[in-house]
């Protein structure tokens, strides 16, 4: 029994297949990079796993249970959290309240009221945004917003975390900060699937990389294997890949 398995998963938008008969299997632990050209179906795949979209056909299993077709809030309770390509925070409430909502609703499995405040403070400490606890989320800088979104996802106590272009729009120093945090999350035993366009980052962070093109898997392997793969070089990396 795999940790996360997809079986002949397809997603059609009208006549267009965004994901086509995709089989995949992810084991627990580590960071999995998901790359591919624009329109390859990366975000669609994350949407299918997290329940934003139901697959047109096929099924997705998480820890042995079929989760495809479930509502997102139920999938969240089963242990899958995510972030969004464009940050989706609750802007008019404080950072603390953002995290609070995620921990009472998402982490309901072993929620105990009196622990809650302490746990949120620990999380904020972990992400280095403790000083922003009382600030309205909309007043934060973009990098801080991204960190809050990551923390909010963590607060739901996930086993699997889906990251959609977390580092897009950040400067090099901020990228380093975000990468460090992602590594730390991974060290906590949370499996991570990340979509990213910055090749140097994806190559250095990932334990394994899956490459999509036109909704189909064209390669799957370690970063070294991927960077030498003919098909990947032709469709995505180009001849002088930056790694």
């Amino acid at each position, binding site marked *: 029994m795999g940790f996360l398995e997809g079986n002949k998963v397809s997603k059609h938008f009208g006549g267009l297949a965004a994901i086509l008969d995709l089989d995949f299997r992810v084991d627990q632990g580590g960071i999995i990079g998901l790359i591919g050209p624009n329109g390859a179906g990366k975000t669609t795949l994350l949407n299918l796993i*997290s*329940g*934003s979209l139901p697959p047109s056909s096929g099924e997705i299993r998480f820890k042995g249970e079929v989760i495809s077709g479930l*509502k*997102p*809030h139920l999938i*969240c*309770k089963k242990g899958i*959290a*995510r972030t*969004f390509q464009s940050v*989706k*925070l*609750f*802007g*008019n*409430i404080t950072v*603390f*309240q*953002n995290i*609070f*909502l*995620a921990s*009472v*609703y*998402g*982490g*309901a499995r072993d929620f105990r*009221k009196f622990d*809650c405040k302490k746990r949120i403070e620990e999380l904020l400490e972990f992400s280095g945004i403790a000083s922003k606890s009382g600030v309205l989320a909309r007043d934060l800088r973009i990098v801080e917003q991204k960190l809050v979104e990551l923390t*909010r*996802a963590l*607060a*739901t106590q996930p086993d699997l975390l889906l990251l959609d272009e977390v580092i897009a729009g950040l400067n090099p120093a901020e990228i380093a900060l975000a990468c460090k945090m992602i590594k730390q999350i991974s060290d906590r035993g949370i499996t991570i699937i990340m979509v990213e366009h910055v090749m140097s980052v994806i190559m250095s962070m990932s334990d394994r990389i899956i490459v999509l093109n036109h909704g189909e898997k064209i390669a799957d392997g370690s970063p070294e294997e991927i960077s030498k793969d003919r098909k990947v070089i032709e469709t995505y990396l180009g001849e002088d890949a930056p790694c």
Partner: protein
Amino acid sequence: MDLSNGLPRKELSVWLALLLIALALPSFSPPYVVLSVTSIYMYVTLAVSWTIFCAPTGYVSLATATFFGIGIYVLALLGKTLPLPLVIFLGGVASLFLGILVGLICLRLSGFYFAVFTFGLSELIRNSVLWWEHNITGTVGRWIPSGSAGKVYYSMLIVVTITVITSYLIGRSKYGLALKGIGESEEASEHIGINVTLHRIGLFAVSCFFMGMAGAAMGTKFSYIDPNSAFSPLISFTPVLMSLFGGVGKGYGPILGAFILTFISELLLSRFPYFYTLIYGIIFIVVILFMPKGLAGVLTRTEQA
């Protein structure tokens, strides 16, 4: 769970003082004032219960009259046989169930369509009851068991107190916070484990419950009702205007708005019976143009300055 500090002692004492004055009012005021204040309570109840749902979710319901009218009709049907407090409660329950039904059908719609749908719904119900009375029972309207001015006053006072306290508690609870979250980003809310549909329908039903109670409590003021007055579209629009006038950003906004606008309209109605709606309309346009966050917004700005 509480995230903010409790209500400041000063504010609490203001509310308690208001409640004491309200309790004693009928003993020192002429019946006319008692009746006017009763309708202020009614509009406060409607405005606050409208805001409970519509402010955090961003949905605009134009079906207030439906749930209010259901309460009145429950009173008309059961008022002779059952004790009044029970009838008022049942008026709320009937609206609650209709609210759940409406919620299941149409809370999947996006905001704009929801507003149109609820307005259509309230017209549908008004005309259906009208048709029913005309063709099936062969009557127009009904007599209702009416109560004394004092009885109506205290029933309405109890309803408005419960409504305001509940609204305050919801605003402070994790549900209130979750609803704010849903209003800001539905997608993010569901991905952190919030059951968006359940929260929306639940809150909508709660707000309908209070509208129904208000209808049943207020109904005793009239001795006769017909569908056109029980389900009058004005009952749907006025609480919206009042809430916006007072400002939905603060808990006391709708209370203030309903209080002042009811007061003004009573005043205008007696002084300028012919220009009443005209003046009322102008006041409202001015408020929308120059005070987009309502009176509460203006007050907050003055506080900060």
